[in-house]
């Protein structure tokens, strides 16, 4: 679905968000944190920012093979 649900702003068009990176293996070396990426066909764990809305940063789980968004959560603390 190209509609991301921002936990604060609600469902918004994808164009309002900007993808920053897919996450590497947690806890790796500083080099791994910056350069390595975990690529899986069915699950991609990513950081996005809602730049055209509340500017909040989101942790997004997606299925890159189907495009479905599995879940989003606000990084800087959750909604109420």
């Amino acid at each position, binding site marked *: 679905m190209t509609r991301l649900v921002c936990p604060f*702003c609600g469902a918004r068009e994808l164009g309002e968000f900007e993808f920053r990176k897919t996450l590497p293996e947690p806890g790796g070396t500083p080099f791994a944190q910056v350069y390595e990426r975990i690529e899986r066909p069915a699950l991609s764990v990513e950081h996005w920012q809602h730049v055209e809305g*509340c*500017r909040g940063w989101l942790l997004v789980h997606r299925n890159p093979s189907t495009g479905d968004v599995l879940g989003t959560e606000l990084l800087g603390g959750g*909604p*109420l």
Partner: protein
Amino acid sequence: MSAVAADALAGVRLERGAAVRTLEFVAFAFPPDGALRAAWPVEPGAVSLGPDDRPTLLHFAPARWLLPDPDEALTALVAAAVDAGAGTLVDVSGKWQAMQLTGPGAARVLASAVDLDAVLAGRGCAALVLFDCPLVLARVTGGFALWVRASYACDFTAAVERHRPSG
């Protein structure tokens, strides 16, 4: 809000508000903890209205409230919250250009850029980008109140003019 430059569009009026003192209160934690919950619209997109039905407190981003032209009572309330260490207050006067879009065609003009129902569903205000201009939108009696980032205000007005419903 005096009408400084009213464009009499067919069925749509876009009025610019005068430059007024505007504050942004930013809480340290989202969701804000106990002290604020009572006196504050903490729901995402919540708005509290002033006496003349004018939005005075808009929760448009996580733990971030816009206070356009706050009166003494509201200023005191915010000062108390700052003193209580709940967050910080920033005077952002000049950052947002206040505008009012009223008239029967107002919703149609905005519908050229966004799906209003989805954006304002169950909310008083929303931060979004219309015609490539970042702004905060709130529904008010007779139309919409908008706070457009000042540097975009001129082109936002031109865009509204382009999208005036024809006939």
